[in-house]
């Protein structure tokens, strides 16, 4: 049965209230896509529940009638994970956006799945605490989506990713049961670590409704620097040398020339357009340690040939630089109509090689590419600037992606560092993880969700 079936829609309305069920094309069309380029799907109906109980009731209804359900937060995903499959019910959690309680003595915060990432950190900040994961879309992305995709961000090198902060989850299972995993204890080895199964499960195993997150004390000091280079290799070598010097900065981000130009067109903060590579470096922690580390990082950058090393004058300038970096992907859309973003990640010592290879592929396939990413953790975002209406060019984009994936896997990398597999990368998953692992994932999914109702067709078929 499809989600648009009138008796099903009536039952949904009776469950969550008529204003929270959308069926007209004007209402539902805008839920046909997420932040991923060139992917969209037809929506059956949209439901916006207001509580875990309502989510469970909706899931019981869908389970009873065999309606597929695609969970969605703010729809900023970058692998098509919340693009609806035909006839599905889009279950959107943005109404459940409360930061429920900051538990300062235990360094945790309990939030609803629809809470905005930046709002969680803001709530922590009121207690002098810190929620480090900061995906590019943090101003609007939801925690539920971050957990479902195991999102990263600019601070991965020092602070890790979303998984490192999830202590507990409340999940609605495919048949409508509610399960809770984990707790506020730092140590807990009671049974399987079930929460870990849901982190990065991309909405295929359950609907995350509430999250208990770990917080850290807010760093007392922070320093942000910008280094510019005439070659990408010099920037990459700077990063290797910083890590070899036993310094773990919280951020080591790079932008190539194309990306710098686009970001500057948008942000107008005086980035140098004439450099081949720009490195955004940030260190945080105790003021004395920050001062020392920043000094050594600047020294290393200069020794490796940086043309200029500039330090942000204050918090405001540092924030402007980080915001500009976060806008990189969207800013690249200025150049061509379609922006295809990749997320390959390689071991850190292969990064310079990989960046060079991407440039080579772009040249060979006659494509424009802008590359940026997290140099400190080997996570690259080569972004093809193309036009989906040009079939020939799109074919070359797919060939280039194939080249890049092959190389990534050859150097021991992964097809996705932080965006998830979703629809966009499922063709390559088996190649990366191997047959045994791929089959096991599918068997697990079948055991959990035998009717295949949750986010069908994502990660694998």
């Amino acid at each position, binding site marked *: 049965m499809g989600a648009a079936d009138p008796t099903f829609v009536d039952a949904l309305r009776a469950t969550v209230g008529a204003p929270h069920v*959308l069926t*007209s*094309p*004007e*209402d539902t*069309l*805008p*839920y*046909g*896509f*997420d*932040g991923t*380029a060139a992917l969209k799907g037809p929506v059956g109906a949209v439901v*916006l529940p207001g509580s875990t109980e309502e989510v469970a009731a909706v899931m019981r209804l869908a389970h009873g009638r065999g309606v597929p359900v695609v969970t969605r937060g*703010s*729809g*900023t995903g970058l692998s098509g994970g919340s693009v609806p499959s035909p006839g599905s019910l889009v279950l959107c959690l*943005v*109404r459940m*956006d409360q930061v429920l309680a900051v538990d300062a003595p235990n360094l945790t915060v309990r939030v609803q799945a629809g809470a*905005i990432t930046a709002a969680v950190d803001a709530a922590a900040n009121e207690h002098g605490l810190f929620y480090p994961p900061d995906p590019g*879309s943090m*101003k*609007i*992305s939801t925690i539920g989506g971050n957990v479902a995709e195991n999102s990263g961000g600019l601070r991965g090198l020092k602070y890790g990713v979303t998984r490192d902060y999830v202590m507990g989850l409340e999940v609605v299972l495919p048949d409508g049961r509610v399960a809770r995993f984990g707790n506020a204890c730092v140590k807990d080895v009671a049974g399987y670590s079930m929460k870990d199964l849901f982190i990065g499960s991309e909405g295929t195993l359950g609907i995350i409704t509430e999250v208990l997150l770990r917080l850290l004390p807010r760093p007392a000091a922070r320093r942000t620097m910008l280094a510019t280079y005439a070659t990408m290799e010099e920037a990459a070598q700077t990063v290797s040398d910083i890590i070899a010097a036993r310094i773990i900065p919280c951020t080591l981000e790079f932008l190539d020339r194309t990306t710098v130009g686009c*970001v500057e*067109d*948008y*942000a107008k903060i005086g980035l140098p357009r004439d450099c081949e590579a720009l490195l955004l470096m940030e260190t945080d922690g105790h003021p004395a340690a920050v001062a020392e580390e920043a000094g050594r990082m600047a020294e290393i950058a200069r020794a490796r040939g940086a043309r200029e090393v500039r330090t942000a004058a204050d918090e405001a300038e540092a924030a402007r630089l980080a915001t500009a970096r976060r*806008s*990189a*992907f*969207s*800013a690249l*859309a*200025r150049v061509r*109509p*379609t*922006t295809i973003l990749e997320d390959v990640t390689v071991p850190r010592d292969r990064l310079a090689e990989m960046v060079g290879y991407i440039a080579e592929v772009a040249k060979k396939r006659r494509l424009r590419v802008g590359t940026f990413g997290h140099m400190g953790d080997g996570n690259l975002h080569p972004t093809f600037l193309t036009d989906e209406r040009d079939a020939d060019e799109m074919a070359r984009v797919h060939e280039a992606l194939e080249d890049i994936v092959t190389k990534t896997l050859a150097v021991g990398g992964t097809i996705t560092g932080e965006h998830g597999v979703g629809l966009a990368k499922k063709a390559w998953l088996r190649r990366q993880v191997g047959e045994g692992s791929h089959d096991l994932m599918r068997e697990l999914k079948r055991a959990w969700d035998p009717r295949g109702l949750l986010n069908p067709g994502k990660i694998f078929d």
Partner: protein
Amino acid sequence: MKASLKSLDYSVLQQCMHCGMCLPACPTYDATKKERHSPRGRISLMRAVADDELKLTPAFADEMSYCLGCLACQTACPAGVDYSNLLETARAEVAASGLNRTVSSRFWRAVTIRGLFMNPRLLRVAGRLLRLYQRLGLQTAFRRIGLTRLLPADLRRLEPQCPTVSPKFSHELIRPVELPAKKQHRVALLTGCVQDLTFSDVNRDTADVLLANGCEVVTPPVQPCCGSLHAHNGEPGPARTLARRMIDLFPPSQFDTIITNAGGCGNHLRHYGQLLADDPAYAARAKEWDAKVKDVHEWLLEKGCVAPRAGLGDLTVTYHDSCHLTHGQKVTRQPRDLLRLIPGLRLVELPEANWCCGSAGIYNITQPEQSEQLLVRKVGHVISTGATVLATANPGCHLQIERGLRQAGSPVTLLQPVTLLARAYRKERSAESMTA
């Protein structure tokens, strides 16, 4: 500007890569949390219309009307989507289709957009009549005995929002040409429609500030409406007519700069090039015009505004960004910097200073509920600053927030930045003449 979404260059629609960065900036998404009420949601509907996946429906028309047109999404958008162009095109298509309009709203549209705002003299006559109604105490009397209930529903709702008309209009306060002590620039001053009727004193203040900064100020006594009201509400034809009249009245080659002091008009005035791109007789001059139009605050700072030597006493001021000044024209720093030039003035930042106040052209007429919610939010923030003066540089915001503050019983005074600056210059002159 094109007449339909289909005739629009497809790349304008395609420019949106639906990343969602606009969602947190959009007041209607913030209020409803529904994608359809967000910029990327609306663009997806427009694209569906252009792709023949969606017909022009009353719901589509409603959605285009529900958008404030505040353009906060344009500031937030890293991809550089021209949302203003998209919205105006979609609204023009809706207006041409005749969808979703009752007989009475069509009547008022004809009276205002096609009537009064096409003819500045008629508009002033209407202004005089309104002033008479207000001066004779009829307004109070009518309200007391409930006569206003006889008005049609649309007007009845609006009647309490009706601004007090100035005793004198701009041409009675400003001579067609005024000369400074030492002439450095020759500028034209645009007096606007609402600004002319209700804040002609702000136009006088603007002229004074320009004179104090070495400008010969040219202010023709009768000026057409700039057409922003028309373009924003799906009437590109009349908007083009008015743009041509403006260019004829103010040949851009004759002025160093063409000065506007109303945020809402300013943003539209800077896009005549786009509006008249297909008009061979005007396209080139329209481009030249766009390059000459400057917001008064922007221009003063660019030229290095003369700092007044006298202040206005101990004054705590906060500043509200008009949407089309900040998101449309990207003028945010300059009005604040001008205020800081005044000795003794303390500027405190307004929380959510660039969040729409709900005035949004005629939005407070077409969408009163949403408008009121935004107004209440704005007024709360203004009061929280503890400032005694709120400065803003757009007559629509001025009227809207002033009404909100009075409703809330707040004594905060509303002034435009040029007024504060003009008063400081006057103070300086009177202090000097006392000592002389």
